[in-house]
């Protein structure tokens, strides 16, 4: 049987020969993840199952990243519940306080996820690791509780949509723009239940970080996973992050795809997803003068060092517009320190930015940058549902770090070439 990347990984882990889309396979798991919102429910499900231990104390990971540093008593109680469980179970990979990073930036950095892995997480953006050629997807709390206890779960093999990336990227156009464009083409349920497999000459040119940005938002098209084949870049990234000897994984020639879509980057300008659904995507120049009150640069989508460099290149020597809150949240402690060493944090501070700790914070309307009624944000995050970042009467526009930085300077949504 000729296999897509998703089918190949599932076949390897399940030991099943027949991984035709629609089949159900049982699969041992490389890693099970939960966060401060989803772990408490999964822990309670485990108790209901009568499970008094996790399947592997190195492979059950809890990252308390959503409301960190704890924003109120309720969130502190949730984290305390997670911590007590982690201590009782002897979890090796429990992250809180100064160790914490945004989970989907942190785990690849630490080598806890890598090419060919099968990962489930109690977080819908678990699909990020597809950028590192891992089959990774989000699940409900009972599933995560069972996965923590058993170290296995079941999957229905998804049909794969082949996404062929071609052409040449213009200056200030990158992975985020490609993904927003794709979501605009497919719609928010266009990849429902399916795997996206990114391929084509341009996919080879993207950095592993850029690939993770794209895979991260597979869920915004309804997808189960978003996968890149692994190449020299993947293997080198893995080797530099505690995962030497990672496998090369590519689809077989002649693998069967449900359909194929192509994105030709040539001539494409920066893309912006407008309120209130991620598939409401337009090129930046078509927006007109959209006044913003806040610009957020960070999150599991775009809080990596490459994103901070792109933002700093725009902001260097310039000041954010008066009455615009520019908030920069490096996604992990390592990224934070690297941005400090490279002088990026100084550039941000000089431009009038607030540089915060690694946290999911404002992306989900948690804290550290909540919008008032009538306020509008440009953000490098992944969702712009009504009320996502605060008031039900606020608006979120999604874009790349370059667009978010340029817009912070002018106070209106702006093409980075114009500043």
């Amino acid at each position, binding site marked *: 049987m000729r296999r897509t990347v998703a089918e190949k990984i599932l076949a390897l882990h399940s030991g099943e020969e027949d991984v035709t889309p629609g089949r159900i396979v049982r699969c041992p798991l490389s890693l099970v993840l939960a966060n401060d919102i989803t772990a408490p429910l999964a822990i309670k499900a485990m108790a209901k199952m009568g499970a008094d231990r996790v399947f592997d104390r190195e492979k059950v990971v809890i990252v308390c990243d959503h409301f960190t540093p704890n924003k109120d008593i309720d969130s502190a109680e949730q984290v305390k519940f997670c911590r007590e469980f982690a201590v009782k179970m002897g979890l090796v990979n429990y992250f809180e306080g100064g160790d914490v990073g945004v989970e989907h930036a942190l785990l690849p950095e630490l080598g806890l996820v890598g090419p060919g892995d099968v990962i489930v997480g109690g977080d819908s953006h678990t699909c990020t690791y597809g950028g590192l050629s891992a089959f990774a997807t*989000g699940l409900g709390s009972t599933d995560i509780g069972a996965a923590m*206890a058993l170290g296995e779960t079941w999957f229905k093999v998804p049909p794969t949509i082949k996404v062929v990336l071609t052409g040449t990227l213009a200056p200030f156009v990158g992975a985020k723009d490609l993904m927003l464009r794709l979501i605009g083409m497919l719609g928010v349920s266009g990849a429902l239940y399916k795997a996206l497999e990114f391929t084509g000459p341009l996919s080879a040119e993207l950095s592993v970080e850029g690939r993770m940005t794209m895979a991260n938002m597979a869920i915004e098209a309804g997808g189960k996973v978003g996968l890149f084949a692994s190449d020299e870049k993947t293997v080198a990234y893995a080797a530099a992050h505690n995962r030497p000897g990672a496998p090369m994984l590519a689809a077989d020639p002649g693998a069967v795809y449900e359909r194929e879509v192509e994105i030709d980057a040539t001539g494409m300008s920066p893309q912006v997803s407008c309120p209130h659904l991620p598939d409401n995507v337009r090129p930046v120049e078509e927006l007109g003068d959209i006044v913003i009150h806040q610009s957020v640069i960070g999150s599991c989508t775009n809080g990596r060092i490459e994103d901070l460099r792109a933002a700093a290149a725009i902001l260097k020597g310039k000041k954010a517009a008066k009455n615009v809150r520019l908030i920069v949240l490096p996604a992990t402690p390592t990224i934070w320190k690297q941005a400090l060493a490279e002088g990026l944090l100084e550039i941000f501070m000089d431009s009038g930015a607030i540089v915060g700790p690694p946290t999911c914070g404002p992306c989900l309307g948690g804290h550290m940058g909540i919008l008032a009624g009538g306020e509008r944000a440009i953000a490098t995050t992944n969702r712009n549902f009504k009320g996502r970042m605060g008031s039900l009467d606020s608006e979120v526009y999604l874009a790349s770090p370059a667009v978010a930085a340029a817009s912070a300077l002018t106070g209106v949504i702006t093409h980075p070439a114009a500043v």
Partner: protein
Amino acid sequence: MFHGKAHKVGAHIDTDAIIPAKFLVTTDPVELGANCMSGLEPGWVDRVKKGDILVAGENFGCGSSREHAPVAILGAGIPVVAAHSFARIFYRNGFNMGLTLLEIGDGVEKIRDGDELRVDADAGVIENVTTGETIPCAPVPAFMREILKRGGLAGYVRDKLEAGA
């Protein structure tokens, strides 16, 4: 084997239609069941008799990951849903909560609201007693049957852990 009257709903029925968020203050199946499908039509559940069968269009259960949705359907007395297709997280949550789900594709056209159905989920056959037609579908996989037999994933895992201990 299931035997009951078909209650047919359309495509893209989301979890807010199945059980609106205002009822999520409880996890009690009976309470949730009393409000099943109230986001679609208030009082919808009044037509349902225990053992009846829900028949739906494509993408049934789209939207949030709330496990209350399959619980509400079970609580309404419906043990099985036959749909053109299911949304991904609902499909998992359904079996995990002990609800039998059958994907029947275009076979859904052969069932009208109110038809009498006989469903053999293990064999993958739906018999429309009213029309005399037989609708084949993929049988529930053996592994999922194991989960259903134990009332859902929590029971399955509990038994598995006890067997291993």
